[in-house]
């Protein structure tokens, strides 16, 4: 493993057991994350994209050990997090942070901004009360808000301002790796661009590495360095943003990109390839390639054999018949 890898997962899985309890019903397993091997490199923005239920949020949480993996490993700069005891893990948590989607639900409405920002500082023993106060003011200014706002409550802010507060909280203890889970999805476009610019500036200033989880491919193309595409618990394609958008290898990636509405009426196309049918249930996965029931190119082998993620000219794809072949 090279030194510039910040987060590294090997065969990571997270399964949920549903049903089979006291009230009966068959016991079933949801394979939310099902064998993911990924390296996230220092100072990059790695985007994780896919439709709802594909496991992208669960993968982000398992990387931070906010949820325990069912099997496999997650390493942070070479240290396997999966085997760590609570105390050591809590010490590392200040390096591993998350910014949530909903700026309304992720801030305690009964705490002032100053308390919201000082809580992570106190729990990691940042310093004296005065030092903590100064750091909170510094954090607010770092995200473009005035220090006077420390005394205000979350309801006094707009959605964009709250998201800035959520970012300030994540940055309190000078993290190394930040998971942004749909962090700009709830914002209006004019505000979304402001927050993305802020995230980019902070990344440059503070040498941050981002895992950027989103369903919005347009934001990915304009913001991410590399992209992983997830489908039903698996990463089916990984590549640099430009390669992936210019020349998708997996049919799912291609169809996902074709479905994005394009803000140009001259490109209006009724003849674009359209994904058929619905996402299969994660409790009842198709045999062979999980995508074969929706894939326009599926052949016999796709119904029986599950393709592995394989390297291909510095990219990776899990498909028996990648699109350039």
């Amino acid at each position, binding site marked *: 493993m090279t030194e510039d890898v910040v987060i590294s997962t090997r065969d990571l899985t997270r399964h949920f057991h549903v049903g089979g309890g006291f009230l009966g019903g068959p016991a079933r397993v949801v394979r939310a994350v099902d064998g993911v091997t990924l390296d996230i490199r220092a100072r990059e923005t790695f985007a994780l994209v896919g*439709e*709802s239920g594909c496991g992208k949020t669960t993968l982000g949480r398992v990387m931070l050990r906010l949820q325990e993996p069912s099997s496999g490993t997650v390493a942070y700069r070479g240290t396997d997090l999966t085997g760590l005891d609570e105390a050591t893990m809590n010490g590392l948590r200040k390096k591993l942070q998350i910014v949530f989607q909903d700026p309304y639900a992720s801030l305690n409405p009964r705490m002032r901004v100053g308390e919201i920002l000082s809580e992570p500082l106190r729990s990691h023993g940042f310093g004296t009360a005065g030092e903590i106060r100064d750091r909170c003011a510094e954090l607010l200014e770092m995200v473009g808000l005035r220090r006077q706002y420390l005394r205000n409550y979350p309801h006094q802010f*707009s*959605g*964009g*301002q709250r998201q800035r507060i959520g970012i300030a909280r994540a940055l309190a203890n000078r993290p190394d790796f930040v998971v942004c889970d749909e962090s700009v999805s709830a914002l*209006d*476009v*004019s*505000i*979304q*661009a*402001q927050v*993305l*610019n802020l995230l*980019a500036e902070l990344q*440059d200033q503070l040498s941050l590495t981002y895992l950027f989880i989103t*369903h*919005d*491919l*347009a*934001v*990915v*193309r*304009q*913001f991410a360095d590399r992209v992983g595409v997830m489908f039903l618990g698996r990463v089916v394609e990984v590549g640099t*943003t*430009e390669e992936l*958008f210019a020349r998708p290898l997996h049919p799912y990636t291609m*169809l*996902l*990109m*074709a*479905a*994005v*509405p*394009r*803000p*140009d*009426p*001259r*490109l*209006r196309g*009724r003849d*674009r390839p*359209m*994904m058929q*049918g*619905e*996402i299969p249930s994660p409790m009842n996965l198709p045999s062979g390639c999980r995508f074969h029931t929706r894939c326009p190119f599926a052949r016999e082998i796709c119904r029986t054999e599950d393709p592995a993620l394989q390297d291909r000219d510095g990219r990776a794809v899990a498909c028996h018949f990648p699109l350039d072949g």
Partner: protein
Amino acid sequence: MTAETILSVRGLCTDFSGDRGNVRVLDDVSFDVGRGRIVGVVGESGSGKSMTALSLMGLVPQPQGRVSARSITLDGRDITRLGPAGMRGIRGRDIAMVFQEPMTSLNPVRRVWEQVGEPLAIHHGLGRRAIRARVLEMFELVGIPEPQTRLDAYPHQLSGGLRQRAMIAMGLICEPKLLIADEPTTALDVTTQSQILHLMRDLRDRVGTSIILITHDLGIIAEMCDEVNVMYAGQLVEQADVFSLFETPSHPYTRGLLASIPRATEPRAGRRMPSIPGMVPNLARLPPGCRFNPRCGAAMPVCLQRDPVLTGIAPGHAARCWLHSPNGDRT
């Protein structure tokens, strides 16, 4: 108004009164919808786009909300003074609405076919057998697979995409003159969204339904609409056919919006994206003059003093901006 016009709205204003006095959430909104056209209403949160739909449907909460208009003409008939009973008579029959969240807009404890067929019971007094048969036809029309087996399903047994198809079936079941779709795909995944948008276009082509499509997504506007109304802080700020809007946007807000949308079709332009500074004003504390002036890069002294009116720039293209009415013309 031409014979082609199915809906004509003139001077629509909606006010809410509360503890802190009166707030005007819609200010002098006027637009037309032609027969078989898809007309977009686009704006950010708080711009008034959903309130426009609720006002037209007679669904603004009473008694806090008050709707007034010089006229609202639906297929030649003024519906401004119909009152609650009169509105009940046309809602679901002449104008129908599809909401954003297909889960919360369906009753979880009633079978889907009963809900989808309810407008037929209310407006046409049909019996259960006739309704069930008609719902089955509608399910086929909106592309619900295995429609026969879905009739007796409960909403939670359908996926989000199927629920939204069922909602569209309900909206169209009385063959309304106008369908208002308020963010109909916002809660859906992008692949399901493209299926639903395709369905709406297809229904317009085959059935000739006129549609008002409310969205925050300029990509959806570009894919779907014939004409577009851009809203900001309760006012229409630009009105144009879809090509003029995207090719010669005239209001600085529209220009800013078009510049700040991330595009999946173009390589990354740079580390920084263009954005509109500041934020949408609070409707209870509007700035004097043009509502957009605190965020506008082109603001002039007049913009801080007087509210511009919607001014024609080209046939079918108008903007509410002093840049386009240099002499302060009031049209």
